[in-house]
């Protein structure tokens, strides 16, 4: 999501070969398909134990998960725990420096920076999560279908992702903001379009080899339909890199939303988001630096936490990285 593209938003960097494949033991997955009810419990227990293993092997990952959960809880519950009304204007708060009544000071209209920050965090997180999930679903489906069926379809999908990849995220955002009017819709649309090709590629690579795995062939032989094979056999075995990518996409989406709103092409006033708060704060940074510093630091900390979690997930799920 380099940013980079920005935004992109950072695109996945092909460090090793793209054909790193979970030649994983399919036995567990196969069992999941038609296993007797009595066995269901063991699966859940395994699942729980892998969470416990993550906590014990990755204290940093646990800490960042905790920070993120706290940020989400504050963003959701903010108004109920007394952070205040983001729209309420009180004349004494205009450019007020941080103090008891206004812990993060007041902005240029006399609104509480804390109240606006909590609301902005809520909107930024919701936008980032919604667009990352949407892009992940569509992109993964494209990658699965393209990798599994191959041929002309695969070629078409891959050329299409090439074309979408050619737009740096911010430039794509400019184009989208002109067609749709700048706002929540254009931000989501930009992030989704920019991220679909990433998921399509990440899902396609391992699908190419899972397609040839014996358990997939066996499933085909007993007459499983393509959708069933894709979702019950292929998807579970290619899901690990997708999960890691989802974490990086979330941070990329936060950056993209921030960048677009900062440029005036995203969330429009009076609705706050971390990017638009920073945009407002920049104008008055010399008389009221707190209006700019709090949203900026909040955004950076949120992105840092998600990136750290992504790193930890990556080394937790990739056995080659675990011992490094």
């Amino acid at each position, binding site marked *: 999501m*380099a*940013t*980079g*593209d*920005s*935004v*992109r*938003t*950072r*695109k996945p*960097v*092909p*460090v*090793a070969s793209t054909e790193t494949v979970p030649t994983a033991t399919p036995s567990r997955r196969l069992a999941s398909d038609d296993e007797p009810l009595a066995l269901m419990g063991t699966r859940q227990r395994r699942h729980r134990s892998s969470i416990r293993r993550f906590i014990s092997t990755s204290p940093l990952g646990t800490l960042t998960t905790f920070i993120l959960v706290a940020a989400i809880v504050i963003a959701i519950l903010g108004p109920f725990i007394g952070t205040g009304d983001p729209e309420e204007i009180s004349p004494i708060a205009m450019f007020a420096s941080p103090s008891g009544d206004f812990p993060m000071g007041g902005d240029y209209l006399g609104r509480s920076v804390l109240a606006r920050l909590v609301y902005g965090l809520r909107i930024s997180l919701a936008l980032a999560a919604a667009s990352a999930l949407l892009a992940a679903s569509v992109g993964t489906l494209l990658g699965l279908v393209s990798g599994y069926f191959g041929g002309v379809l695969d070629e078409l999908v891959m*050329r*299409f992702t*090439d*074309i979408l*990849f*050619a*737009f*740096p*995220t*911010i*430039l794509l955002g*400019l*184009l*989208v*903001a*002109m*067609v749709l*009017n700048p706002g929540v819709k254009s931000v989501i649309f930009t992030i989704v379009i920019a991220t679909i090709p990433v998921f399509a590629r990440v899902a396609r690579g391992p699908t190419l080899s899972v397609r040839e795995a014996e358990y997939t062939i066996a499933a085909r032989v007993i007459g499983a339909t393509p959708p069933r094979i894709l979702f019950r056999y292929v998807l579970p075995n290619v899901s690990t890199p997708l999960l890691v990518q989802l974490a990086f996409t979330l*941070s990329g989406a936060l*950056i993209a939303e*921030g*960048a677009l709103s*900062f*440029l*005036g*092409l995203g969330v429009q006033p009076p609705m706050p988001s971390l*990017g638009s708060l*920073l945009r407002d*704060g*920049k104008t008055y*940074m*010399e008389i009221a*630096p707190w209006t*700019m*510093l709090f949203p*900026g630091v909040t*955004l*950076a900390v949120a*992105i*840092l936490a998600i*990136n*750290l979690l992504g*790193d930890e997930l990556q080394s937790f799920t990739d056995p080659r990285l675990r011992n*490094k």
Partner: protein
Amino acid sequence: MSSGGYTPLSQETMSRYIAKRTVMALITIFGVATIVFVAMRLVPGGFAAALLGPNAVQQPEVVAAIEEKYGLDQPVFVQYTLWLGNALRGDLGESLRTHSSVTSEIVRRSLITIELTLLATLMSLVIGIPAGVIAAIRRNSVADITTRTVSLVGLSIPDFVLGTILIYVVSTRHIGLPISGYISPSDGIIDHLRSMVLPTFTLGLITTSVVMRVIRSSVVEVLGEPYVITARAKGLHPRDVALHHVVRAALIPTVTIVGINMGYLLGGAVIVEELFSLPGLGRYALTGILNRDYPVAQGTVIVGALMFVLANLAADIAYAYLDPRIKY
């Protein structure tokens, strides 16, 4: 790869590979142009309304005259071929606001953007490569932990946050660096470079972090290769092994990273040029969008995507030359 080890590639395979990549790049550029064309037809109100302002829509005869002048009364396919033909000849139309040629404005302004992206790339290589190599060779040392922390933090501070905070710090602490405006090299090369310091740092921090991480993991990977172990077993000095056997192989991915980073840099240029008031391509694009100046917007987006595609094509070709193991 065959088991016979390294066989030099024939000139023919190489040129076939380059031809294939070039054709794919051309298809991509064609697709980009088509998407931009379609997007422009979807703009609410259409071109005539943008040109004349909202009131003019009430005068159908004026709208019709404008549509005739710009060929908008033609079938879409005819419009598309005309537009594509003009774009291929380098004619991207003229600005609706200033009536200057979009192509010549883009050429003039892209020099600043190209300089900015080159400086940021230079920064990422000069800092990122040594830091990444040292971190990998001395794994878990203080240098390694510092490099990893710096790169993780660098990746997590978006350019617009970093730039804003830098402007604040530099202006309140009275550090003698220009925070706004462009000083042309003809007005003094030193002043020019000083005016580029903050923009370059703001744009380059993320790419520097990316280079650090990629170089580090690539060196770590190469360190485990059998030929490196052999070189060690022969009794070569660890420093010679590192310099001659490891770093050379580990540097190859840098080429790809520089290509991929171009996309981020071109997008980041929009933000950095806006923040530091540099009259480059990115700022031209942003002003074009905010003024609903469609020819400017479509021209800049196409040229930006074109630069990205060409940078990646160059990276792919360079990669093939550098790495004899690449599959065709």
